[in-house]
């Protein structure tokens, strides 16, 4: 038996609540302590997901600290030291009664006021006036709506106006502010119904059902984001340092997963020196995650807009990852690269990955300075990377070649220098012709397959499994990974059918999400339920996991069939370059030698004594490539596809999409 711990943890304190000893985490508000202990204090202005208003004073308690007694409002009162708390002392009851009389005198018909007054033993008030308002839905000045506007959605559209007895809730001048986004947070938290706003643009079947679930997410954003992903502070860039820590941040064309200089471009730097803080940066109205961060007043150092001070959207994680991939760890460069890619209409991911590929080819001697037109395109060449973009915009030079992408360059150089063909094939980080997005997938079989089995090419939005595989360790076994490769691409496709953003689903999770088994936790069941209710609220049709999976599978298979129609969509298009799977060069192998040899010995059972690096690398490669094939087999089977990765007609029938036009395309591929 373990030793009995008698002392409280240093962050806890014992208090006496109505005679009972309670151990409390220091700083917890007294009202929450009482509620947790089942003591139900009256309140009109406290809301569980908002910071305290302290306006109604009904939740008062009498506390005794160091022998001194005091009446305090418990909602905002932090428990930091030992104290004796009486929640219903005579003194407290008397003052509550007076308060209840005041409120009942002003708003005699509002149900919540009547209920609280009755609880305090008040049914009649001495305090009435010409301002007594017998509207059942009168505003009781609690302030929840003002807090919700600020804390749920960071907008600050509504506030009180007037002073003293003239205090009232309004938008400026009593008019609807055209900047109100209609998120309905205010109406949701209103205890009386004084505020009315309905999100009706889509004319949903049940707007309240949508709102009630949407607001759950808003409450989580307000309370949990700051301790989880900090999307409101730094957007998706929050994972830069996480990826580096877990050896998943692409560095030098995906050779490595971390770099000592990452701290120069991580989210701390972006927050402190670049991103404007506290802004309601939603890319669509009503998004409480507000991750569309921006750098304001950035002075450009190069190109046609040199010297201009501009607002830059981002950098997001993928852009930072593209820069680390090029070995460029200068934050000013990251922002400038981000800006020019955007305004020139160039994808930061493809540009980052392709430039990294060009840099490795340059360092390996595939191309030289003469070929690049004088640009010394080594890893870390920030100015040269920008110059490639400027050339692309002008339609000249090496920039235009780079703009054709990794596959085009790889094919061209393989023809020009056949001795490099195999090497270029291995290090050219594209699949299906699309450049990889910015995750180093060597150690995550799930992500490797997530990337290359994706219909459009290696972009993480169809299967962003790297985090649950490598960081959260939620899909440890081969079976888990295979299952994930079935469920998540379909679940993520569903967002694309609906017009929804996926990161709102999983970048902030309920505080108790860990109560689920890892494989279930990865789905975030409460959030999935919110979305099902969202769909039902819009369409009027209830939905469950099976229906959702079918909805997505129809479209997922349609995309596969269209690819097939265009001459692709088979197993050979689903193959990754080896750089995505394992170490291509000795340099890479040696940099993570311990890890690879552990795998050789413990998992593959290969005796490494006396073996050359090349021999070890060959065995590792064979194993990893076989693993990839194996996981593809399982994934195809689960998806109802042939061994060659083509949907079966049986699967189309099952999904109700065995339309003649579609069947015609895949008929020849049925085995």
């Amino acid at each position: 038996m373990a030793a009995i711990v008698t002392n409280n943890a240093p962050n806890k304190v014992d208090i006496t609540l109505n005679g009972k000893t309670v151990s409390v985490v220091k700083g917890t508000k007294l009202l929450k302590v009482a509620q947790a202990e089942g003591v139900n204090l009256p309140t009109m202005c406290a809301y569980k997901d908002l910071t305290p208003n302290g306006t109604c004073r009904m939740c008062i308690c009498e506390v005794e600290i160091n022998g001194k007694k005091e009446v305090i409002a418990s909602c905002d009162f932090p428990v930091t030291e030992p104290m004796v708390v009486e929640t219903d002392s005579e003194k407290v009851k008397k003052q509550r009664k007076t308060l209840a009389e005041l409120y009942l005198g002003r708003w005699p018909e509002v149900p919540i006021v009547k209920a609280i007054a009755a609880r305090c033993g008040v049914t009649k008030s001495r305090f009435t006036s010409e301002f007594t308002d017998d509207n059942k839905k009168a505003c009781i000045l609690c302030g929840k709506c003002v807090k919700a506007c600020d804390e749920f959605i960071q907008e600050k559209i509504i506030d009180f106006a007037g002073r003293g007895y003239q205090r009232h809730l309004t938008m400026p001048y009593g008019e609807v502010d055209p900047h109100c986004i209609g998120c309905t947070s205010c109406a949701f938290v209103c205890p009386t119904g004084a505020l009315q706003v309905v999100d009706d643009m889509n004319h949903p079947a049940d707007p309240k059902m949508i709102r009630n679930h949407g607001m759950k997410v808003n409450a989580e954003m307000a309370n949990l984001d700051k301790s989880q992903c900090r999307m409101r502070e730094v957007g998706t860039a929050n994972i830069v340092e996480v990826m580096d820590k877990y050896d998943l941040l692409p560095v030098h064309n995906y050779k490595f997963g971390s770099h000592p200089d990452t701290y120069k471009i991580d989210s701390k730097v972006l927050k402190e020196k670049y991103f404007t803080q506290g802004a309601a940066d939603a890319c669509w109205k009503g998004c409480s995650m507000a991750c569309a961060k921006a750098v304001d007043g950035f002075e450009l150092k190069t190109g046609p807009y040199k010297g201009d001070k501009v607002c830059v959207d981002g950098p997001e994680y993928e852009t930072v990852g593209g820069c680390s991939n090029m070995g460029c760890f200068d934050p000013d460069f990251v922002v400038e690269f981000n800006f020019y890619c955007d305004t020139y209409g160039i994808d930061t991911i493809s540009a980052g990955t392709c430039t990294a590929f060009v840099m490795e080819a340059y360092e390996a001697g595939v191309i030289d300075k003469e070929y690049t037109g004088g640009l010394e395109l080594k890893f870390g060449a920030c100015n040269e990377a920008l110059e490639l973009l400027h050339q692309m915009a002008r339609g000249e030079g090496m920039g235009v070649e780079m703009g054709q992408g990794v596959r085009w360059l790889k094919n061209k150089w393989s023809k020009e220098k056949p001795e490099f063909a195999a090497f270029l094939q291995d290090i050219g980080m594209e699949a299906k012709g699309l450049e990889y997005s910015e995750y180093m997938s060597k150690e995550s079989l799930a992500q490797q397959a997530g990337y290359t089995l994706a219909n459009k090419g290696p972009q993480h939005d169809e299967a962003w499994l790297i985090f649950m595989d490598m960081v959260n360790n939620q899909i440890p076994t081969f079976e888990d990974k295979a299952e994930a490769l079935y469920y998540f691409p379909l679940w993520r496709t569903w967002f694309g059918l609906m017009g929804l953003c996926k990161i709102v689903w999983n970048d902030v999770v309920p505080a108790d999400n860990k109560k689920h088994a890892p494989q279930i936790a990865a789905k975030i069941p409460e959030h999935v339920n919110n979305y099902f209710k969202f769909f039902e609220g819009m369409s009027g049709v209830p939905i469950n996991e099976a229906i959702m999976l079918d909805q997505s599978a129809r479209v997922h298979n349609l995309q596969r069939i269209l690819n097939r129609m265009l001459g692709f969509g088979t197993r050979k298009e689903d193959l990754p370059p080896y750089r995505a799977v394992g170490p291509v060069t000795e340099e890479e192998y040696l940099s993570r030698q311990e890890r690879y040899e552990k795998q050789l010995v413990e998992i593959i059972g290969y005796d490494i004594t006396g073996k050359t690096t090349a021999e070890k690398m060959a065995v590792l490669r064979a194993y990893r490539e076989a693993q990839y094939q194996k996981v593809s087999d399982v994934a195809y089977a689960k998806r109802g596809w042939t061994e060659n990765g083509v949907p079966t007609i049986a699967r189309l029938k099952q999904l109700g999409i065995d339309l003649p036009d579609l069947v015609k395309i895949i008929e020849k591929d049925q085995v």
Partner: protein
Amino acid sequence: MTHKISEIKKAHVLLKEFAFEPVQLERGYANRYLRINLDNNEISILPVTQQMKDLWIGGKGFDLWLTFQEIKDLKDFSWEHNANPICFSPGPLAGTTSFPGSGKTLVTTVSPATSSIMDCNVGGYFGPFLKFAGFDSLVIVGKSAEEVIVFIDAVNHKITIEKAPLESLDSHVVAEELTEMYADNEIDMRNIAVVSAGSAAEHARMGLLNFSFWDWRRNVARLKQAGRGGVGTVFRKKGMKALVIKNRGITPAWRVEENKVASEVTPKTIQQLTCEKDLADLKAIIASFGNDPERAFEILLAVQERFKCIPKTAIEMICQLTGQPKSYLYHLATFHDCFTLDPEKKRCGDADCDCEDEDCDHEHDEDGEEEESDEMPEGEIRVVAPNPIVTCRDNAFAGLEKALKMTPEAVLAEIKASELLLKDTTGIPAYQKWESVCTASTADKKPVVVTNVVLNGINEAKIVEGLMIAAYATGADQAFILLHSKIDLEAFETAVATGQQILNLKVDIRLIGDDYLLNKDKSVLSALKGLASEPYHEFVRNTKTGYHDRPTLIHNNETMASVGAAIFHGAEWFKKHQTKVFEVYGDVKNAAVVELPYGSTIGDYINAAGGSDGAINAIQFGSFGGPMLKATRQELKTDYTTLKEAGIVLDSSEIDIYNKQTPPTDLFAENIACLSFDSCGKCGSCREGLFHASRLADKIADGKARKGDLEAIGDLAECMRETAFCQYGINAGKSIMKSIKEFGDKLAKGVK
């Protein structure tokens, strides 16, 4: 080369105009889609079938299905064909604002990178606006011979294809050009969304599409990207420069239940400024305060002085230029009595002037007739001080010079030893606050020192000296002097300039309003942030987490002005010579600011003001926030210990003498009326309690009170004392209870 918007627009040539009927969305669908063929500028509206919805739902599902319809019968199709469709679909749940993250557009095309299907999801306003315009999807096929813009106008229900030669290709420029061009006015810019590529997209296979949304706070078109696989390349290949949509505005039908007070406060007429000179003046006023949101009160005051009211345009422009939310500004403008929103009720803007006259020149102030009795004329403050510390005019900055020769630790030790007391409600040793500030100070969060100028007649130089010593001792790098009126502004500027020659410290002088509530530190902190002066955090200590979460030392001007003497003369001397200042007004022979040794009696102060004018009926101890005391209380010492024992709260350092001409019932009613008028209204006990206490006290004064009314006032006062949010309400409760105790029998006479 950049062109003016008007020139760019003029260069447009209309190639096609197409009118359409609006539709009502039903459960997330418009049930039709839009197809534009740039080969022949053919625009068509086609139905979304039930089968499409059942099988493919929408978004990417619709995109792919429509793509399939476009290309399934084409021979030797490749991405480079003119027929390659770009499809845009928002999805049935998109455009929702009550569930976060519901604004994505799904974009597909046959990709130049993969020669296969590419799909992207993108934010920005285009997709939701497309659906609100009545289209579940947009399919663009064909290739235009000229550089064109496709404009979907959901306000006038038409679609145009316009030849557009002069617009920039680069997105950060073209998105703003087109937003400005197609918006009716500034507020309408949020209703425009632009889709564009960029000058490199046509030279690469990795061209993307930028989807804009107008960021009204930053005043820029923000860009979100449909990034992958070359959708921008295909867009440019079609000769598309941009795709623009104009939405009819989605301001929701927001309403709050009507009530009497709102209709009293909300202006009946709203002033808008349109004349260019007025707008320029407005801009200059805001700029003169550095576009600083924290100086919102001063900006509004200058606006009031210039326009004799607060025009709506001013609130909007201050919001735009300072970033202070409009709702906060409106709160502030309706909070202080010196502002008028209704142009019909113009005021001169002087905080001390009650006129409603546009042409007011404050003559009533100059001839001194209007405010003859209880307050001294401005600029003629009589000071009575036998051994002055804070009102003396000499030795300014000698204490600071001495302090700078000491270590900060030694200064702190001296202040501790001097037993300098806070000359506010609390009367606790000032050192407690200094120590608390020093403990909370970190490299990131250095302390701030603030002095709140609440008392008249204190030497400005002494105040600045104290402020600077406090900053030196605590390591503060920022100081504020908060003024309640402009009268002493110049004197403070001079004093600060002199002090800064000795110590290089950032000192800002701010006007925060002539407001009794602003005696309280928590209200001061709100005012300092440019907010209405109501308290925000109940249990957060300013000394730990104050201005911008920095440790903040707030002293009133009397306390602050004492600091120099404590250092200059040393702790031992100071302990014996500490003073207390009271402003003595009312029925006295010579109203004066009186500084006497700490612990002098109330009578001493009255005598220093020449004694009472007639027999004293009541002593109002501490303006209207303090209690009414009987004449016999003249013998009471005014040290904090004695006051506390006598159950008297010192709410402000003012003594008003009333002779027999003022019945206590009137004074009682007047006090509570003033308290009620100045309450911020945040917490129920103070707001509702003072309102009803005032009503009942009026009844007593009018002799119309009923049995139980005085008890009711007592109940309300007790409730405030126990439950009010801040010191204002707590002190009000205490003082009313004390007044009842002192004058209960007389007040009871007003009860029938």
